[in-house]
């Protein structure tokens, strides 16, 4: 009898704690990864986009709406990166808990100074984001700020576990602080070198590690490369002695290979998202992988 009671109470405890877990939805895998670091087993997390998917275009599935409808917390970029697919999903989910301004809505860009904010937004400038460049999580110092934002929001919504979230954040902060030395040292020999990227996703990364990632295979953001633009890029690469061309999983690698073979540079497969390239599950591991790949190419 005692044993049955024990089993019953264990089951009840499980059910209770399962119900008490916060349902967290992250639009993109980088926010998902940070939320996992902070929330640990105290939250249930669903990440909408895959790490190998272009964050500008994500194909909606029915479960997305269900997840958003049941969410206690939604973490999104807040800088229009998901503007093509998130608003209609939210409209269908109609979940007041995750509306903008509610405690359940964590907008990662909040309190972050975005780079390259356009002075005027016209369609002539290309597929620009009016609020500034939204690919900011790849800067580890910004990632710390986002992690802190997530930790504070989770603590406010789930006070019994507030100390836990604070602890995991402190741990994450310490890991990143230690790693920053290592990463900075690895990139130091290549200070101010120019690097080519397919899309302008890397200004924050370049800024943090002293690189100029300022030549792009796309003539304008979101516009496929044209022959004359590629010719110009090749000339620029030769003039600046560029050694690396960054591509992401959803970009056309053949274009990068073409300009690389014309200039003797190396193609480096990069990802903004943990899990987007092999050996990059977890935020710190992702940056580790990016740094070591780039260092190998620039050598």
């Amino acid at each position, binding site marked *: 009898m005692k044993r049955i009671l024990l089993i019953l109470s264990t089951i009840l405890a499980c059910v209770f704690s399962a119900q008490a877990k916060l349902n967290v939805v992250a639009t993109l895998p980088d926010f998902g990864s940070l939320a996992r670091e902070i929330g640990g087993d105290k939250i249930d997390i669903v990440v909408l986009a895959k790490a190998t998917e272009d964050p*500008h*275009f994500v*194909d*909606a*599935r*029915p*479960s997305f*709406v*269900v997840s958003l*409808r049941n969410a206690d917390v939604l973490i999104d970029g807040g800088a229009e990166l998901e503007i*093509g697919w998130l608003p*209609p*999903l939210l*409209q*269908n989910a109609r979940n007041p808990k995750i509306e903008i301004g509610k405690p359940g809505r964590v907008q990662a860009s909040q309190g972050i100074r975005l780079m390259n904010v356009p002075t005027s937004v*016209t*369609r*002539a*400038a*290309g*597929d*620009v984001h009016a609020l500034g460049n939204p690919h900011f999580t790849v800067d580890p110092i910004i990632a710390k700020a986002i992690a802190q934002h997530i930790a504070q929001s989770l603590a406010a919504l789930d006070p019994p576990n507030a100390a836990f979230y604070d602890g995991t954040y402190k741990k994450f902060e310490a890991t990143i602080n230690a790693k920053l030395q290592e990463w900075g040292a690895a990139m130091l020999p290549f200070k101010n070198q120019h690097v080519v990227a397919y899309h302008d996703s890397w200004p924050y990364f370049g800024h943090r590690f002293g690189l100029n990632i300022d030549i792009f295979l796309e*003539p*304008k953001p*979101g*516009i*496929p490369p*044209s022959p004359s633009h590629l010719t110009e890029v090749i000339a620029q690469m030769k003039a600046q002695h560029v050694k690396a061309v960054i591509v992401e999983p959803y970009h056309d690698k053949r274009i990068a290979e073409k300009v690389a073979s014309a200039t003797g540079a190396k193609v480096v497969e990069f990802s903004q998202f943990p899990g987007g390239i092999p050996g990059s599950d977890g935020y710190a591991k992702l940056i580790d992988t990016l740094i070591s790949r780039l260092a190998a190419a620039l050598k």
Partner: protein
Amino acid sequence: MWEVMFWPIVACILLPWLLVYLGLHVVQRGIIFIDIAMAQMASLGICLAVLLHLDLESWTTFGIALAFTLVGAAIFSVTGKRASQIPQEAVIGISYVVAAAAAVLLLSRAAEGDEEIKNMLIGNILLVTPREVWERFALFAAVGVFHFVFRKNFLLVSFDRDGAYQKGLQVRWWDFLFYAVFGLVVTSFVRIAGVLLVFSYLIVPAVCGINLAQRIGGRLLIGWIIALLGGVAGLFVSYWCDLPSGAAIVCTFGALLIAVSAYTLICGRLRAN
């Protein structure tokens, strides 16, 4: 599940009947890819609006897209000669590739707008809003009435062109009306459902109907049943297996067509024996 799937299911019940009917015309005329060509024409119009820095939700943009659709209708009605060496399908194919390539050229000058164009051709039935459903239902009802009033002429022009010429009908004019209205319907449905789904709704139920029935009324009835079955079943599959909804419906249609073909094959064998 109902909160998420309610409006997609309503859309799949209220809207496809007109596409099935138009599909019978399209299959009979042998112009299978007309819908894609028309949708591409309309999106070329949107590209031009992008180039002119117009607001994409505005009526001006809608007007430009509509004008391009009418240009398409004019091209197809002029080239659809009574007896020509060049099949209509060739003209449709050419219009499609030229419109698609022209869109690429325009966008390369315009920059941006890429996402809008993609959204226009990719539309997602899962995310349809009640307003979109009712707007299209009203449009389709109006077009349905129009087709019903002039059904004799439209059917004659599609199903018995020689008869239409003998009767002294202005075939080109009726062709133009058919294509213009068709373009309007397709373009408005593409926006909520995407090209793949529009194509399936036009062709698959019509082909099933032609397989199973001789008279137009019977074909239409079978087509409607197939469209309802495929749409709703596809949405359920999409929900249960968590698959993209449009693609799930299209594959359900594929499966239904295979089932119908197998059925007619077996029936044919039995009768032959």
